[in-house]
């Protein structure tokens, strides 16, 4: 225990506390008290899992990553056959009485796979073959998730790829090629993959007056919620925007708006500080890691989590489009909480073993 990073644990517990309070408020608004309790259970289970994984050896996990990767790809493929259509996507499967979102776990495995792959390239820069292999490893699950379709989740794979390539080292020429390739991919996605409502969301972000009653309406309600919290907030369970259900998707994508409305700038800034502490500790682990596997894992996980936090908060405060990216630990969802905790457990494991001699 003593060899774990206390700051990381502390930030996770602080965020969990905020998550329970925020979920309690939205559960009241939606008259579904079970939500908050279940989230609390997931958080408890998640912290336990975090501790459990932190006592595992991340290098062992990395060694098994090809197997885990194949399994997760297989599950993602199987989803197209066995998952029921829910909310327009085939992202969920039933396991017992729970619904599980396999893409959350596939993402952890992908980070692990990227980290394991990075170990094979000991040069200061990645060569051409390495870039392709890393890109393929990230792109395969991401594309499967995109086809579910779950744009928000698929987008969270992008920062993992970018971080892996960045940490491995790329020539400028390669970056330029990558950016061009990415642009071509985005254009293709815009033309052939994005649903009309997804295009509308992006366009609405660019011009909020475009559709005041759909996605623009959501973001406006979110901004009203955050802004009207002012400095000290309206008090827990007293946010008018959440309690009167003006806030859309308030237990998932817009949970931060609930928190910001009810606790004000003070609470929002404290939560932001907890996330900053968490992210900073993950990068400290990346710097302290004893090997390339640990450094790349922590770096990718840290950047992935950071971008999710920033994009979600940006969306809630109206400076990023509504993409359906959830806020780690705070948004409702067992799979998300557990996958995040497993990731952080591996990070703890990297920290714990930073001085270990092979």
């Amino acid at each position: 225990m003593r060899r774990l990073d206390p700051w990381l644990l502390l930030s996770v517990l602080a965020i969990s506390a905020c998550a329970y309070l925020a979920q309690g408020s939205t559960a009241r608004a939606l008259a579904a008290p079970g939500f908050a309790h279940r989230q609390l259970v997931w958080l408890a289970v998640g912290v336990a899992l975090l501790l459990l994984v932190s006592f595992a050896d991340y290098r062992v996990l990395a060694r098994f990553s090809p197997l885990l990767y194949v399994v997760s790809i297989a599950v993602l493929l199987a989803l197209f056959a066995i998952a029921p259509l829910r909310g327009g996507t085939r992202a969920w499967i039933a396991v017992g009485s729970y619904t599980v979102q396999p893409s959350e776990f596939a993402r952890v495995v992908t980070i692990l796979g990227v980290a394991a792959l990075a170990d094979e390239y000991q040069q200061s820069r990645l060569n051409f073959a390495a870039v392709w292999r890393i890109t393929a490893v990230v792109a395969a699950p991401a594309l499967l998730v995109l086809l579910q379709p779950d744009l928000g989740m698929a987008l969270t794979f992008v920062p993992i790829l970018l971080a892996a390539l960045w940490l491995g080292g790329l020539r400028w020429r390669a970056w330029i090629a990558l950016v061009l390739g990415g642009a071509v991919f985005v254009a293709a996605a815009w033309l052939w993959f994005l649903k009309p409502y997804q295009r509308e969301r992006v366009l609405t972000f660019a011009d909020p007056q475009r559709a005041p009653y759909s996605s623009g309406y959501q973001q406006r309600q979110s901004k009203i919620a955050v802004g009207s919290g002012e400095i000290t907030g309206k008090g827990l369970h007293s946010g008018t925007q959440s309690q009167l259900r003006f806030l859309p998707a308030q237990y998932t994508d817009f949970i931060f708006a609930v928190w910001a409305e009810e606790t004000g700038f003070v609470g929002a800034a404290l939560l932001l500080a907890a996330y900053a502490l968490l992210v900073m500790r993950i990068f400290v682990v990346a710097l302290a890691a004893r090997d390339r596997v640990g450094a790349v894992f922590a770096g990718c996980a840290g950047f992935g989590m950071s971008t999710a936090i920033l994009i979600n908060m940006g969306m809630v405060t109206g400076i990023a489009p509504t993409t359906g990216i959830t806020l780690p630990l705070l948004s409702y969802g067992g799979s998300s909480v557990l996958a995040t905790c497993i990731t952080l457990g591996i990070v703890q494991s990297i920290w714990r073993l930073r001085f270990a001699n092979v």
Partner: protein
Amino acid sequence: MTFVRDDLRPVQRRAVAILAIVAVGLVVVLLRLWVLQVVQGPRWRSAAENNRLRRIPLEAPRGMVKDVRGEVILDNRPAYQLLLFPEEMNDSVRTAAFLTRIEIAPADEVRARLEKASRTSHLPSVIADNLAWSQVASIAAHRAEFHELEIHPATRRSLPPGATVAHLVGQLGEVSPEQLAESPNLRPGQLVGRSGLERAYQDVLGGTPGNLVVVVDALGKQVSALDEEPPVAGRPLGVTIDLALQREAVEAMAGQVGAVVALDPRDGAVRILLSQPAFDPDLFAGHLEPARWQELTSDPLNPLHNRAIQALYPPGSTIKPLFAAGALRDGVRTPFDTVYCTGAVTIYGHPYRCWLAGGHGRMALEQAIEESCDTYFYYTARDAGIDRLASWARTFGFGTPTGIELGGENSGLVPDDAWSRRVRGQPWYGGETISVGIGQGPILVTPIQLAVAYAALINGGDLVQPHLVPDKGGAPRPTGLPAEALAHVRRGMEMVVAGDRGTARRLGNLPVRLAGKTGTSQVMRKKDGVKWYELPWEQRHHALFVAYAPLDKPELLVCVVVEHGGDAASVAAPIAARILLRAFGPQVKQGEVAAAVPPIWQNTSLPPPPAPKGQTSGPGETLPSAAAVEPARPSSHAAARSLTQQEHPKQEPRTRQ
């Protein structure tokens, strides 16, 4: 022990770069939160309040209006309004279709109202008044589909049936933007007085609207009531009007076009204020449909016009007592100066005819009033000159509004040389002075001005300010007319009714002694040999009669103007007589009063005057026939005789049966 470690320095360097980018992102989010919550916080807070709070306006019940005896003229009755909250409307086409289906209004009208309501942003607007029960039920049943609609209990003005007090009470209408800017108590869509008493006493009757603030959720469902600011009902208003007399006037007018004004000559308290044709005041009790408004404004008889204070008429012979008083005051005439009337006179080289073709013979002032001798007043006008005639007219208040509380009063026209040069660009033409002398030519007055002028004749020479609410009259302004002069004029007016040759002597045998003066003002140039009742209605003369009673201490003065009535003594005088009989006569039932004073054509085979648009009741139909009352009325012969004595400037009416 040595560690074999990779060279991780490039990786670590790059990780620090990522952390730096993330740190920048976190700072950006922090700043964004600062801007939203601290800098713009109050603005977003009010946005959140607008989101959840709905202010439902609570209209204040307007004050009731009672007449001088305490009888209710104007009251309220419960009604249901339909409010629209424009922000809640998702699909105006669907809402419009629904409202059209339940027959709130025709499709394009509904669309127009929705559009107008949408322009007033977050405030609810009244879409319909006076909902039928079936409409209330339909809207309630579709509540879940149309969050934007709200049924709201309110009150509606309830008036006496018919159009008895339409102009007096006036119209309600939606508050105008200018009024809104002026008064903080008003709010969009609120009904305020637009004319009549409703407007003049908006401050008293209007009350203060209240608010019900309710909390609604995102679906527009009312969650709870937060606060109620109850409306303050308008205060009751007691007016000087006598509703019984007003009703009598309506019956006596029998659907003819014109005005009746009655007032207490002592202080100017108005007892009757009637203008016909009138509109149905219930149209204005709530929110008026533009189609109905169009209908009213395009009516050629202009029912919205309050003829009692707005219409201009040549006073005709009713000006003679006023000029007589002026002539006595200024010494243009003494009471005993005489003029010989041969039926025609040539002044300034032009022939002027007296209405009595054979002439009146020798006339002194009192007689000239009694018989309404034109010749006497032609000479008086010539001797006075137009500027002096104008000053007499102004002495009696002509040319300026009387100052009654109602808005839109006309000031009339007192012509003189200066006016002619200013308006017509040419000097006054002396021949016109002679016409003005008998109340023709460019001189124009309103019925209420005429009433006020006569009040001065009979109250000792004070120009009172007519008023509808007690103590709003102000101090009377003395005209400075000598009491002796007034006494002569009054005697002349008494002889109009009581004298053997008085123009209204057919009223001489009524149970109430009254006095007054007839006036038949010319609408267009006479055609010789054509009788008034043979002319098309719109070419007939206006019939005027101003009368008062009791003779020694007058308490009520009635001024009747019947547009195109044709003849004063037979059309206007019976109306005034009925009213005075009602006020001072033995207690009789309404129908009996009518029987006592039938209009003259019932003794003849004359056609009744055409009933103005929409009203089928000519006088011949509503009043009992002359034959039925004849045995009971000894004066009927006198009345019949007076047929041959019609005053008719420049025309010979003798041939009438």
